[in-house]
């Protein structure tokens, strides 16, 4: 019953979710949701550039994400505009620029819906290889910088004072996010990458006893959402990205119900 393309989509989607879960925990802890949005919206600009310069799409998206991330770091240091205004400005400007640039390139036949919302049909074996190579690298680096990054998340000054070099960990974290945006774009689409970062992490928060715990649970919740969402997408012919996000949302709501049950049981907190 399962078609070949569907297996590919499942494998690729699960690979993405395994990475966005742990990374998403840091996004939630650091209140960086809007930052993730900005990076993923800028991905469309990367796609446009890739067609214009005839380079690999994933590479171009990664490059644009890195530039946007560094730009943000630099602009935040100047702090002339509040951080959220700055992010909103960059996020939507990048999205609009990408859309306009793609419209100009009339010679390019492109599935805009697929870019914005993801397309399971588009997942190739090469994509799977990219997801697992990139994702594996991201997880390895994340494990390596976990301690300083986590210390910097709890308190940057404390981390700096005790020799954790938080600035370096932050910079590496930005680069990891750029990689994730580049590999997740095809599965969930540029508009919804942030959802895959945040919702599984938020779901995991309800069950987690510690930060590492939460990262693992978030990965699991993400994989479950991908599987459920893709099956739904196949069944009702809905776009893959939104279907996955709706499934993730459903799991999040179930996690809230679980908490309600515990409270009713009157267990000691």
């Amino acid at each position, binding site marked *: 019953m399962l078609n070949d393309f569907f297996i590919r989509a499942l494998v690729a989607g699960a690979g993405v979710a395994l990475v966005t879960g742990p990374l998403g925990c840091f996004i*939630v802890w650091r209140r960086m949701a809007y930052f993730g949005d900005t990076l993923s919206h800028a991905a469309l600009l990367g796609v446009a550039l890739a067609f214009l310069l005839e380079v690999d799409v994933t590479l171009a998206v990664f490059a644009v994400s890195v530039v946007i991330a560094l730009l943000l770091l630099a602009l935040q240091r100047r702090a002339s505009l509040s951080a959220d205004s700055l992010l909103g400005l960059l996020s939507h400007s990048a999205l609009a620029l990408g859309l306009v640039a793609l419209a100009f390139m009339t010679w390019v036949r492109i599935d805009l819906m697929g870019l914005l919302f993801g397309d399971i049909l588009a997942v190739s074996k090469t994509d799977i290889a990219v997801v697992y190579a990139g994702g594996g690298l991201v997880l390895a680096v994340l494990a390596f910088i976990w*301690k300083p990054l986590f210390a910097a998340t*709890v308190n940057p*000054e404390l981390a*700096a*004072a*005790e*020799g*954790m070099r938080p600035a370096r960990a932050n910079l590496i974290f930005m680069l990891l996010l750029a990689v994730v945006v580049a590999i997740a774009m095809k599965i969930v689409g540029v508009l919804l990458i942030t959802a895959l970062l945040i919702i599984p992490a938020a779901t995991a928060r309800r069950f987690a006893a*510690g930060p590492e715990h939460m990262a693992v649970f978030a990965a699991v919740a993400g994989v479950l959402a991908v599987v459920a969402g893709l099956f739904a997408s196949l069944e009702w012919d809905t776009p893959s990205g939104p279907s996955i996000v709706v499934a993730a949302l459903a799991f999040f709501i179930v996690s809230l119900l679980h908490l309600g049950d515990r409270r009713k049981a009157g267990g000691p907190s």
Partner: protein
Amino acid sequence: MLQSPQPLVRLEKAGISRSGRWLVRDIDLEVRSGEIVTLIGPNGSGKSTTARMALGVIAPSEGRATRRDGLRVGYVPQKVAIDWTLPLTVDRFLTLTNPLSRAEKDEALAATGISHLAAAEVRNLSGGEFQRALLARAIARRPDLLVLDEPVQGVDFSGEIALYELVSAIRDRLHCGILMISHDLHVVMAATDRVLCLNGHVCCHGTPQVVAESEEYRSLFGSRGAAQLAVYQHHHDHTHLPDGRVRHADGTVTAHCFPGDGHHHHHYHDDDDHHDHHGDAPEAGEGKADAE
């Protein structure tokens, strides 16, 4: 010069300027092993800035900040906010920057009196419990230099004294240098070796006694502040109980605390004139209430 032990941290004519304004300037400061140095000063006088400069969190705009090679620091920052979304138990918090064995964790928790809170979530702790958890984390890594930025905030008066006593016990046990910031003008612990009084620059410095008696200190905090600083010298030989009575070093409990009650060490009365003029500990208690 060469034989003298190298200071753990040293600031030389160090200053920080932001947008053309000097937050602090011309700071000379040294902390050595086994020594407690306290920074006091009004709000905005640059106490935290000075500490952060000493820690290397911010680089001085002028002058020099040097730390001994391989210096291991334990830091209790002034403000630590744990996000609701962060699942973090006290136990996990202890290992934030340093792996620790179970025994090391237990020792730090026991030393700060929060053994029963090991499994508690950090964000559910009360102010005083959280300060103890911060302190436990900082000492568990056995630092050479302990930097405490207002370690007694959110702690009530008797808890404050207990924490100060804990700090000096830590110094004795780990033989580390301690740089402490106190926003409490009236309570500077008796165990402090040197006090630096800051107000954008070093107003005056020396032993608590010397600083309390200096003109600069009096003009900054008024004579009442000076009186309270001096009065606190008594705390090493008596403790104020929550019900207002006083327990003395010899174990007796009296309703009040006054110099002639026979429970105090004599040398303070002999060589500390203004102490008698400015009154007894109960006045210090009232002064504290007035100030707040």
